């Protein structure tokens, strides 16, 4: 399904993987953390091929955020956010401190939210918790699969701004899947456009508006239609 993809993500940058449904962008993301096995080719992470990593260790080094947040409904917000640190056997006090810090960082006052269950949160709040959970063990790479796609436009914009802020403050490296060209341009330092499982074009976000390929122009046209 994916062919001839050659892409490097530098430390501190956010690469937006842009493409239509079925273009392979989510599959590419899942290949990075080993949820989807590679038929050929290789992915390098922290100086080693991902195939050489213990998949469990590899995934704990990568934060992961999906569209519906995928929070554990039977756990409190605090337990959800502290998951990976607990799996990594941090001391309880360290986990609690980290959870508190992250909830504040994503704009949820810890005292008010840490004991709540996911069903007591709005869609935007769930997604904030999802991001806090993904960042909990300070992963070198953050994988995001259309994290804001299901939110209403105002909440989405709010979270997008917060994500930009987070990117600036912690210099988080991220791969960000989206089908929204506006979001790709706003959040990506570079935009990688996928078409039918192949890389169509990769450009810095600022230059992407001048991209010449048919697929890129099709996406850019949706920006101009107003």
């Amino acid at each position, binding site marked *: 399904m994916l062919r001839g993809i050659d892409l490097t993500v530098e430390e501190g940058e956010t690469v937006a993987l842009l493409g239509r449904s079925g273009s392979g962008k989510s599959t590419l993301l899942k290949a990075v953390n080993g949820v989807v096995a590679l038929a050929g080719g290789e992915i390098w992470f922290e100086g080693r091929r991902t195939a050489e990593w213990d998949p469990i260790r590899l*995934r*704990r080094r990568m934060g*992961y955020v*999906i569209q519906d*947040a*995928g*929070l554990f409904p039977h756990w409190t917000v605090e337990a959800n956010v502290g*998951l*990976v640190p607990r*799996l990594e056997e941090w001391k309880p006090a360290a986990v609690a401190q980290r959870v508190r810090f992250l909830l504040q960082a994503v704009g949820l006052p810890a005292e008010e939210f840490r004991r709540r269950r996911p069903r007591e949160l709005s869609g935007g709040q769930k997604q904030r918790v999802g991001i806090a959970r993904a960042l909990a063990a300070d992963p070198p790479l953050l994988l995001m699969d259309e994290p804001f796609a299901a939110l209403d436009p105002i909440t989405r914009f709010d979270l997008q701004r917060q994500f930009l802020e987070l990117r600036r403050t912690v210099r988080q490296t991220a791969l960000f899947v989206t089908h929204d060209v506006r979001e790709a341009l706003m959040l990506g330092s570079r935009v990688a456009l996928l078409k039918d499982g192949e890389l169509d074009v990769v450009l810095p976000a600022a230059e992407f508006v001048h991209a010449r390929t048919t697929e890129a122009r099709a996406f850019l046209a949706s920006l101009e239609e107003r």
Partner: protein
Amino acid sequence: MNPRLVSEIAALSLEHLELVAITMAIAIAVAIPAAVALARHGRARRVAMGFANLAQTVPSLALFGFLLPLPWIGGIGKSTAIVALCLYALLPILRNTLVGILGVDAAVRESAVAMGMTRRQILWHVELPLAMPSIVAGLRIATVTTIGTATIAAAIGGGGLGVFIFRGIAMVDTPTILAGAVPAAVMALAADEGLEWIERKLSS
């Protein structure tokens, strides 16, 4: 009431409870691990569910009869009765455990995998806790039907409250039938209420 009758009711109720408790313990020990294994294998799941459904359709008196001539598990007595009761109790537990595990939200499972939880951690900390209300609902159905069906165990020498019922039928004596039927019904109602209460606690 005749004190001899009272002590016989107590003794047979206890024997009945014993049949039910042993049956449920075995059925749980078989059905829940089986459901966990089957949750990951679609084809085996269809075969096993087919078998469990089939066992359920055999009329209970006939099933007790079929088991009688079999070596090892057959013969007159408690063990044959327990084997037959287990065959009935398996299906609701198996089905409800499967429904519970397979019903875990795909997004929850996806993020559990992507967070680097091992299969075992996902099973114990995510799948089973989330499936628990459904599992308890299955236990409830299985317990209540086992209490009722266990009265038939007396037909093959399994003992329990069915002893009164078969004796009452033979003597055409309604009070004797009731001496077996009423305690069994009370037991079933109590089990139903108790497990429903646990079920409610778990799903809130």
